[in-house]
């Protein structure tokens, strides 16, 4: 007789509140269901009450961890609406800031992975070293999170030679942390033992559920918006799209670990080839119409759709975050696994429920509110 096991919403394992209903027989998970809504804030509605500029701050607060990429994707879409040509220097600066954010997001994920694998030594080591990227971001942008560095038409703060020197020093100091993580992930590493063969997402299934980002790349599919549809200065920079074929949690971890090296490579190149000139272009009136923009967030493809009626307030803003796309992959991966592994599998997609919770479905007959129930 299968029984139901509830994980969450406020359970120790998870950083953010969400509730998983697992159908379990013996120790095997037969089926899974996600219930969200603990983070729902009605953001898409709020977007239509603020001006294009004010919405930058709102877009940023969809998610505190990948906040920079939200403002970039939003700003790029608005720039299309306003027909603004972003200065070359701003494009390169955007790459620098966004790759720093990817580093901090990936390192945080490794910290949480170590935490959920009960590797406390590794957790502390990663979190201590990660403070360096947080300090650097605070020094460059003025805030540890929610930096609000991208603006419509460019960036808000320049990188002086002095700051560039500091970034270079930081990069040299970060390589040991990435090496340390790679060590944990080699054949005998601490992470490998507990993650190899766990939560396998086969290539076909990954495509079927529409996974994005490292979750998809861990299943052997080379998909990266930075390469496929280059934005900012990514088209002019040389980097590799990391792919792993195993599809298990270890493969996803390896993708992220190897991506940190690519991020460092991108930052170095962008700093070396930084063009001179303005960092922000003047804002214009938005045209009447709709635009669509996408970027590669640390967790995968991020999509913004904005419809304008020509006023200074958007008529509709729709956001598709990577965690939303990847939630369906969790359900696939959970099926057939043991209960002990549930926690690490859920963590493996780097779920960001602050990103996801924007949909409320209200049942008209019963008046029951359901914040997106997947099954």
């Amino acid at each position, binding site marked *: 007789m299968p029984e139901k096991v509830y994980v969450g*919403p*406020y*359970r*120790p*394992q998870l*950083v*953010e*509140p969400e509730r998983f209903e697992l159908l379990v027989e013996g120790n095997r998970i037969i089926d899974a269901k996600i219930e969200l*809504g*603990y*983070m*729902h*804030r*009605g*953001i898409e*509605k*709020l977007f239509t*009450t*603020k001006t294009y*500029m*004010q*919405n*930058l*701050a*709102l877009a*940023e*607060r*969809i*998610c*505190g*961890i990948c*906040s920079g990429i939200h403002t970039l994707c939003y700003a790029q879409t608005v720039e299309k609406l306003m027909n603004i040509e972003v200065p070359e220097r701003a494009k390169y600066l955007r790459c620098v800031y966004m790759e720093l954010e990817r580093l901090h997001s990936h390192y*945080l994920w490794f910290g949480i992975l170590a935490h959920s694998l009960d590797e406390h030594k590794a957790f*502390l080591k990663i*979190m*201590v070293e990660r*403070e360096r990227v*947080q*300090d650097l971001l*605070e*020094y460059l942008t*003025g*805030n*540890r*999170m*929610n930096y*609000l560095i991208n603006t419509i038409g460019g960036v808000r*703060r320049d990188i002086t030679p002095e700051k560039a020197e500091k970034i270079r020093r930081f990069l040299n100091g970060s390589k040991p942390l990435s090496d340390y993580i790679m060590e944990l992930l080699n054949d005998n590493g601490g992470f490998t033992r507990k993650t190899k063969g766990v939560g396998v997402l086969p290539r076909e299934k990954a495509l079927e559920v529409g996974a994005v980002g490292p979750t998809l790349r861990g299943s052997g599919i080379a998909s990266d918006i930075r390469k496929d549809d280059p934005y900012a200065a990514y088209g002019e920079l040389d980097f590799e799209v990391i792919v792993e074929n195993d599809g298990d949690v270890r493969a996803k971890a390896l993708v992220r670990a190897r991506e940190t090296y690519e991020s460092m490579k991108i930052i170095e190149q962008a700093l070396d080839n930084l063009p001179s000139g303005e960092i922000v272009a003047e804002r214009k009136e938005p045209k009447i119409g709709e635009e669509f923009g996408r970027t590669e967030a640390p967790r995968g493809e991020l999509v913004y759709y904005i419809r304008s009626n020509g006023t200074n307030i958007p008529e509709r803003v729709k956001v598709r975050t990577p965690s939303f796309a990847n939630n369906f992959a969790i359900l696939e991966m959970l099926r057939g696994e043991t209960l002990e592994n549930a926690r690490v599998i859920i963590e493996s997609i780097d779920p*960001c*429920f*602050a990103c996801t919770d924007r949909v*409320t479905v209200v049942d008209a007959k019963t008046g029951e*509110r359901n*914040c997106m129930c997947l099954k």
Partner: protein
Amino acid sequence: MGKISVYRFLSAGCNGCDVQVLECLVPRYRLAELNVEVVSNPEEANVLFLTGGVNIKGREELIKVYEKINPPKIVIAVGNCALTKEIFDKGYPMVGPPDQIVPVNFYVPGCPPRPQAIVKAVVQILGAKLEDKEDYWATPEGFRGKHEFDRDKCIGCGACAQVCSSDAIDVIDEGEKRVVRINYGHCSFCAFCQDECPTQAIRLTREYHLLTNNRGTAYIMNDVDLLECASCGAFFFPQPQIDWALKRIIEEKVPKYLEFKDEILDAMKLCLKCRREIMNMKKAKKILAELSAKARGS
């Protein structure tokens, strides 16, 4: 108070503050030195850290968690969402701020507050001491912290309230004064007000220790004199703004209007209602005609 066990609760925020609380565990922030640990079960905790503005769904969970916390049940709201819901203030699912659901003892404003601010708050609440180490409390150049008004520069125009991304700035006319109030407990620290201020009167300082036990006091304010209407006597417009505008028109933009300075000033001293009266309209038309004649003549 013996060992402090902290339980984190988050509902309807961006989770930035939650990550900052997590980061406090790093040895660098020395929370462990204060005998503080973060626990994963509310039944083991005696201090509750709240982040986020609480929505319909989080409300019941919050009440459940609060009941499980052991005495002395100290509740600390971390971050501006937990103070005032900040930018999500008008979001339809929001039922917070949390202090309307459970009693909150202390508030730590910030978006997000630095880990140092959270640690300092704990230190202050406990009355403990944390040995000052070099660089521990330092902020980098350009950090966006608490606001500061330059009283001599502020002209009371209210441009800051217009561009504010989270409706944190109130402009209130009270009698013969206009009050501009920045509620930093409601602020998202985007610094749009600093960028837009025409006279550079607002500056975001590097101060970030903002612990308070009454969120109503989390504001700074400035007042400017209002101008009395020359005709009906009502207070209608900030005096410094008139001076600033006149100076800009005559001294910076169109110096040739200098000889009409008094007439322009007279016209500006009338409130909106009085400006529309026949007598004043005639007068205004006359000034305009003279100005345009002057412009053509040169």
